[in-house]
């Protein structure tokens, strides 16, 4: 069984590199209405580490332990390497709590999780927008290749912080 846990320094890592992380994500925030980007790294020990343009979102998600009910962090989902909308990954019994915490509190109307495996590690790119417009709705629905490119760009720059 793949038991996923938080890296021992998960919460401090969210904030410890904030200036560097902010400068990387700043390059892509605003493109196609994107207002939130986070990258989660899952190492060979199945430990999670996340860097985020909005670390308060991940702090609240992981500190409240609601992440356990978010299939974004379930191996059975991310190992398939297929993108999915945030709300499609909330388990039914905690759907409203997750929807509130991730999308209402932080006002992200659209959210997408994009998983990918690189060498022996898994990464999940979380990209969200505060607006629902035709243009960004199309990108979030159909142009996942573009969102993956944005994720790769940030990941390449932030990779040393995960290692």
């Amino acid at each position: 069984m793949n038991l996923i846990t938080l890296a021992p320094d998960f919460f401090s890592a969210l904030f410890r590199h904030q200036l560097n992380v902010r400068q990387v994500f700043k390059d892509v925030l605003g493109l196609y209405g994107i207002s939130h980007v986070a990258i989660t790294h899952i190492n060979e020990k199945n430990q999670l580490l996340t860097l985020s343009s909005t670390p308060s979102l991940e702090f609240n998600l992981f500190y409240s332990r609601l992440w356990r009910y978010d299939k974004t962090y379930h191996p059975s989902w991310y190992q398939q390497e297929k993108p999915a909308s945030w709300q499609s990954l909330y388990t039914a019994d905690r759907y409203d709590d997750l929807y509130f915490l991730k999308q209402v509190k932080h006002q992200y109307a659209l959210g997408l999780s994009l998983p990918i495996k690189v060498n022996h590690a898994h990464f999940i790119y979380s990209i969200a927008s505060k607006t629902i417009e035709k243009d960004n709705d199309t990108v979030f629905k159909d142009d996942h290749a573009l969102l993956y490119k944005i994720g790769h760009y940030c990941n390449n720059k932030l990779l040393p912080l995960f290692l």
Partner: protein
Amino acid sequence: MKNLGMIFVAMEKIDFTKQFAARLRDAMVAAGHHSDKSISGVNIQTLVNITGHSPQICRKYLRGSAIPEPLKLIDISTKLKVSPGWLLFGASNNNDARSHNQLSIDKNILLYILRRSNFLYDTSPQREEVSEFLLDLIDDISKIDTDEEQLKKIVDLALSSATHFRIT
């Protein structure tokens, strides 16, 4: 001991879903879907037709015990001629730039951030970047659900990442 973050989330969620329900009712009444026969004051069948959801779910929306997913909100808001942002988030997302730019933070925490960040202004030539960094930090801290002591630790961690402002 109950998780503090979970308690904060639960309290805010109740407020949000009730506010959403009130906005939904207002928008339905304004669009002419008022009903004296219904406890909620609006015609539930209209909401059933718009959403394609069951009457039970639609009652939950109107009671403030559930919220529709974002894309379903677009359908509802289009039919009711309101913006999806307003329906979901209220005035703060109704193209009102002033309220959209407002944030709310505990005074003690704000004072702590201002005191602890003095050194950045004292020694950095990049004052504009420092200001933007601090604004993002204050905005982010204002959304974190935890106690004051932990917030202060988070502030210290985030500020420690900014020491390079002093080097360049």
